[in-house]
């Protein structure tokens, strides 16, 4: 794992993503300014020494809001990836262990069906049906992570099932479930970490998009997407309102993607062989 830090892409990505994770963590006990009080008198200040990123239309400190917004984004994305992995991986492993069975067929066809729905559309429908909230955003994003992980783990598991060490475990009398967890899962962990990183960044983008259309976290909880939505009409005279939250999204997503790519290079045996 330490080898990853020797890769420039990973390092840059780690620093970028790390900054925002750190900001989110720090925001739990300290922010430069309160984010839930309204101070109309000081609205729309440009960035200065007191308000590093300026203030918004309610006079709130944008820097503080981005810190707390990082919390929202990260929380939503992590739980959504958790849902995807927690349900998708066991389903994928089960489908692979029983390849060709009815179970496999049902799991994979359901996956295909979910894939056939444009993701954002369904997210909008879910939040429209059950109300706009961070929890529903998580569920909507999480649902679309399930087939991603199910497909990935099934594909990877299938190629592992043909390997001799799995055959050896079968000769040792181990059950498919036992083999899946003892032999298959550890060997697809790398892949899952890479995909997890990428889904994490997609989750942040999706959360931002949902919040942007007003279906994510509700006020007064700050959220990057909603900050952008609220700043929209003011971009023309207060560009800092849109600039900083937008940059926060871009840099976090960029950081995670860089990490994901670097890890993929690191784990991919094909590329490793090239290096050797």
């Amino acid at each position, binding site marked *: 794992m330490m080898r990853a830090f020797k890769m420039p892409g990973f390092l840059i990505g780690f620093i970028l993503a790390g900054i925002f994770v750190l900001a989110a963590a720090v925001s739990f006990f300290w922010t430069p300014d309160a984010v839930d009080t309204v101070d109309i008198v000081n609205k729309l200040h440009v960035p200065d020494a007191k308000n590093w990123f300026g203030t918004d239309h309610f006079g709130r400190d944008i820097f503080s809001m981005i810190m707390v917004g990082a919390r929202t984004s990260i929380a939503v994305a992590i739980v959504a990836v958790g849902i995807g992995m927690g349900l998708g991986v066991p389903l994928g492993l089960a489908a692979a262990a029983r390849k060709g069975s009815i179970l496999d067929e049902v799991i994979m066809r359901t996956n295909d069906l979910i894939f056939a729905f444009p993701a954002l559309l369904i997210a909008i429908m879910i939040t429209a049906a059950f109300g706009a909230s961070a929890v529903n955003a998580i569920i909507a994003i999480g649902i679309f992570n399930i087939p991603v992980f199910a497909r990935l783990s099934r594909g990877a598991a299938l190629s592992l099932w043909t390997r001799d060490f799995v055959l050896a475990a079968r000769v040792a009398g181990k059950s498919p479930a036992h083999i899946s967890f003892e032999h298959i899962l550890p060997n697809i962990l790398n892949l899952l970490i890479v995909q997890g990183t990428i889904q994490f960044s997609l989750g942040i983008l999706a959360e931002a998009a949902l919040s942007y259309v007003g279906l994510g976290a*509700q*006020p007064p909880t700050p959220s990057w997407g909603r900050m952008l939505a609220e700043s929209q009409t003011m971009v023309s005279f207060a560009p800092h309102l849109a600039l900083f939250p937008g940059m926060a999204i871009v840099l976090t997503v960029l950081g995670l993607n860089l990490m994901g790519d670097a890890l993929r290079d690191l784990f991919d045996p094909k590329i490793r062989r090239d290096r050797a």
Partner: protein
Amino acid sequence: MKTILTGVSALALTASMAFAQSTITIGDQLEPPYLDPTAGAAGAIDNVVYANIYEGLTRFASDGSIIPGLAASWDISDDGLTYTFHLHDGVKFHDGSDMTASDVVWSLNRARAEDSTNAQKGLFAGIADVSAPDDTTVVVTLDAPNGGFLFNMAWGDAVILNEGDDIEALKTHPNGTGAFMFENWVQGDSITITRNDNYWGTPAKLEGATFKYISDPTAAFAAMMAGDVDAFPVFPAPENLPQFDADPRFNVIIGSTEGETILSTNNAMPPLDNPKVREAVSHAIDRNAIIDGAMFGYGTPIGSHFAPHHPAYIDLTGESAYDPDLARSLLAEAGFPDGFTTTLKLPPPAYARRGGEIIAAQLRAVGIETEVTNLEWADWLEQVFHGGDYGFTIVSHTEPMDFGIYANPDYYFHYDSPEYQALMEKLTAETDPAVRTELMQDAQRMLAADDVNGFLFELAKTGVANAKVMGLWENAPTQATDLTAVYWAE
């Protein structure tokens, strides 16, 4: 290829030049669901058809006064029970058929019928009988005297339709008597109307107009700036108005509306059923911060449910002046020294969403925690308006003179005051203007004293138009975009 190119662009050029002079594109946020104003209350319908396509017996002038419409004049019997309307002669519907007294009878009877889907059935509730002695005379008999009857007949819900028209067809192809005729509707995008050359009154100056629907405030700003839209009578983003004001290409038109924007309070839900608590709430609210923060300064503070531009208005904002300390002590008196938690459900308009955040912060400052939920109109209607499942909400009540809603204990405020209900009955029966004014002032005081709702501000009509567009309404006594007098300068 080159010739085709020049040809097309020349065509486009001439087309757009012809357009610029005699037609106008009006921007609006909400598209009407259909175009029959007698079958639904959506204000967006009136924004298109009122005064342009459909007309009633009377109508609102831009200052809110009632002037003759299809009825050239009328007589009122001494007991105030019989109204005799004398209709204009030679009025034709857009399909060419004559508008006669029987159309009026049919229209009013339809509106007050048992199975009517008219959203303002109350306007017609006092009518006992409608008859047509001849083609240009209509006699309306009332159950009891009603001082507001002529006012009622000016509403968009009381316009006159052609007897026997297919009601279904009218929803997409309106057939009125107005100075403009319906031409085309691209659902979700725009509605086009053209001048009615056979109009009975003063013909319109414009050849036609297009209503373009742009719900997103940013898009509205872009569309105005890019010149895609000539006027936005109610521009959705007040924060952009200074930019328009600074730009010589545009005129910013600020006027009044009938929209009392209030922090609607569920008077039936504890602890908001406690008058002390409601009083505390009204003192916790800083109206100026809300007008400044949510509306960027556009709006007039109100202290009761009444439009400030109305002659009967009295300023009661002092009754509920911003005083957080008083609010805290009132809360303590009411038995909530540590405050309480309730819900704040917000419909989509910016005044509600932004105002809601500010109010939530102000209430938090005196110890009242609110769980803020942003709702689509659909959910708002379901949960708040019908379900009564809310503590607070913010909404602008845009119907003119709509303080009567407080007399209905089932209305979503759940304000049940026999005194107020008696007062309203008296007001309805009263026809003497001086006494009516007094009664209306009593009503204002009563609502303010009971702190039924948090009275915030009268919504301003924040319009933007191309500097060369003349004749648009400054104020909005009712929801309407009256284009009959609009023209392009030079």
